[in-house]
């Protein structure tokens, strides 16, 4: 059997490759970077919201407002005690006269307090707040703004309910109206979704290209080392050339896939570990502190909407999307690594390897740009359709396009079948050529020489 022994080649190549310093250090460094990027992407937006809110007051332990003197000068029976208790502020009701006196006291006091007057002026529900001042004052203006903002949201919500709005309509009323615009015949999508649908495919194409192409080059290098060190002649007394290249390509494919998964897991872990400080947890805390999603302030609602859009954009990421990614990765790798194997076998000296790989590099870069440019253009066009079905570019396009719902499962499967058939043809050609050139020594073989030798 021509493939007998491929498992041994696979095991040896895989083991030796994952033991190399470059693999270990590279994997650790890139995984840490991925974890850091994921954690940063999670924490940074929360930090901005946090700093906004912290400045404006929802940091619990360092919160400088302990008492809110409230003067309700309207006809509405607002109850703000419960909402304020959630952020550690005690509400003390005052009449308008008492409020006037209190303002004078607050001008120079060490009391951690602020005063808010609620009134209706020219049909506008208003809240006017004063915080403790003077040399002894420890009150932070930002905290005062946070309480004022929360107060305004609560007053708005309670005003709507007191005016007869059913409570189940409150969230809708508070969220305002979301306006979108889109071309007839297309699904409407927000700015964030549009950005995700542009950036994710580009990043995906770049990452897949780097992995597939760099590991293919390692296949070429490994084969060239076997040839230049003359070890291949010994190996061929135990194993056929086909088994040798199959074992080597599959081993490198698994090594690259493993590194890909490890880095992905690193990113996931970074995201999970940063969850307590991340944007999602922050938004939950803000909503909880505010007394529900309905009570979120304008900027907080915006942030929540962005998160919802991100969630919607990636709603297509399920088991099938992961499977599509793995299958296209493997098929793409087989294609490029097979060709790289022939490039590696065409040289007898390591210094000839770079020029031997050059034609493959041109093919790879062409494939990458065919995948990349339609994504940059953003809109669906004939080039993006071609990129999905041309085998040199489809491995870089299919995973993201399927994940983001740009193509259906059926279209994806057709593209995968096209890629698989092309892979089979390439593997058959590679096996034939490799068998005939593997023992060649001397000058680097050109494509014409290789095909001539394989006749």
């Amino acid at each position, binding site marked *: 059997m021509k493939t007998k022994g491929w498992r041994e080649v696979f095991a040896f190549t895989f083991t*030796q490759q994952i033991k190399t310093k470059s693999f270990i250090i590279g994997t650790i460094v890139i995984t840490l970077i991925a974890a850091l990027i994921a954690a940063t992407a999670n924490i940074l937006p929360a930090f901005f919201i946090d700093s906004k809110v912290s400045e404006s007051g929802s940091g619990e332990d360092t919160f400088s407002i302990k008492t809110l003197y409230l003067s309700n000068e309207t006809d509405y029976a607002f109850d703000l005690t419960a909402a304020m208790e959630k952020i550690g502020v005690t509400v003390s009701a005052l009449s308008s006269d008492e409020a006037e006196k209190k303002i004078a006291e607050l001008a120079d006091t060490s009391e951690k307090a602020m005063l808010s007057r609620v009134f209706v002026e020219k049909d506008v529900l208003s809240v006017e707040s004063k915080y403790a001042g003077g040399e002894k004052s420890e009150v932070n203006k930002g905290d005062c703004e946070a309480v004022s903002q929360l107060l305004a949201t609560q007053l708005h919500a309670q005003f709507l309910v007191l005016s007869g709005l059913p409570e189940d309509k409150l969230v809708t009323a508070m969220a305002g109206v979301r306006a979108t615009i889109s071309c007839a015949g297309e699904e409407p999508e927000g700015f964030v979704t549009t950005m995700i649908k542009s950036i994710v495919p580009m990043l995906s194409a770049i990452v897949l290209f780097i992995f597939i192409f760099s590991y293919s080059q390692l296949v070429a290098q490994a084969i060239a*080392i076997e040839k230049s*060190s*003359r*070890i291949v002649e*010994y190996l061929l007394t*135990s194993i*056929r050339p086909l088994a040798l290249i199959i074992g080597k390509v599959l081993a490198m494919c698994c090594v690259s896939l493993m590194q890909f998964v490890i880095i992905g897991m690193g990113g996931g872990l970074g995201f999970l570990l940063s969850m307590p400080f991340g944007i999602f947890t922050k938004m939950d805390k803000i909503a909880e502190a505010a007394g529900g999603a309905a009570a979120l302030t304008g900027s907080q609602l915006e942030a929540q909407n962005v998160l919802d859009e991100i969630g919607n954009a990636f709603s297509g990421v399920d088991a099938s999307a992961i499977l599509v990614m793995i299958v296209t990765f493997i098929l793409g790798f087989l294609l490029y690594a097979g060709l790289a194997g022939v490039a590696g076998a065409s040289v007898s000296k390591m210094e000839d390897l770079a020029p031997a790989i050059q034609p493959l590099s041109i093919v790879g870069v062409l494939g990458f740009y065919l995948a990349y440019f339609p994504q940059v253009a953003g809109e669906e066009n004939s080039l993006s359709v071609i990129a999905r079905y041309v085998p040199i570019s489809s491995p870089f396009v299919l995973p993201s396009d399927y994940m983001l719902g740009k193509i259906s499962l059926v279209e994806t499967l057709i593209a995968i079948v096209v890629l698989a058939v092309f892979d089979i043809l390439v593997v058959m050609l590679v096996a034939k050529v490799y068998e005939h050139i593997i023992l060649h020594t001397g000058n680097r073989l050109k494509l014409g020489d290789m095909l001539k030798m394989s006749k």
Partner: protein
Amino acid sequence: MSLVVEHLSKKFGDKVAVEDLSFEIPKPGIFAFLGTNGAGKSTSIRMILGMLARDTGTVTWDGKPFDVMNEKVGYLAEERGLYPKYNILEQMYYFASLKGMSKKEATPAIDSLFSRLRIEEYKKMKAEQLSKGNQQKVQLAAALLCDPDIIILDEPLSGLDPVNADIFKSIIRQERDAGKYIIMSSHQMETIEEFCEDLVLLHHGQVVMSGNLNEIKKSRGRENLTIKADKPIGEIAEKCGLTLVEETPNGSSFKVKSEADAENMLKAMVENGIGVIKYDLREPSLHELFVEKCGGEVNED
């Protein structure tokens, strides 16, 4: 059991690499596979091992087509190599696994071979850290790892110092005595004469000499005469029909047409009162046969 090679031929484009090569190794022992550089030895070995497609010819082992994948074959290629960056022991386990041996089976075999070759201390090192000679020893160990029935050694002693060459020779003798079929290629004719009974000599891809070395020599007769005398002998030698080959401080070397001419020369020297210090009539050496068959020209490709 016997290894039979019949009518092997190979062309690369218009260039004939090997033409109608046939020989048989009917019993265990060491068979010499000789030739000038580029004569087609490596191509022939690759064809025998099935690495290279043959244009014509067959190779049989024990009457059946010889398939290197199904037999225990050890091969030390002329262009030797190991993975430079990998640990020696791990490479040996890999080679053993390709020969179908488990780690458990391979361990004692590796230990024994490394001990015989005196390289136990290099097991944990990388190949690139070893000297060329020690790398060669590791490669011989790899070739013998599966306890092969057929061993092909292409220039096994080239580049070795005398101590390591003796170790290699001792191992080759042990394998021969263990009943192995060994094909050895070498440019060191003394080594071939020391080890081999039968040979084939290739020149420009064609067999120019083959058979039992002793019989070849006998068929040629004693045609080399070396004489050291106390007086000049050039004139007498010419009269006796001897052809001068070379003169050295150790004497004069002649080619004789027959042993009778050599005897006449001795008689003539005695009759002329010439004192004979050395008189050596012998068969041609393998070196001489090689040079004679392959001429002064060699193909350096």
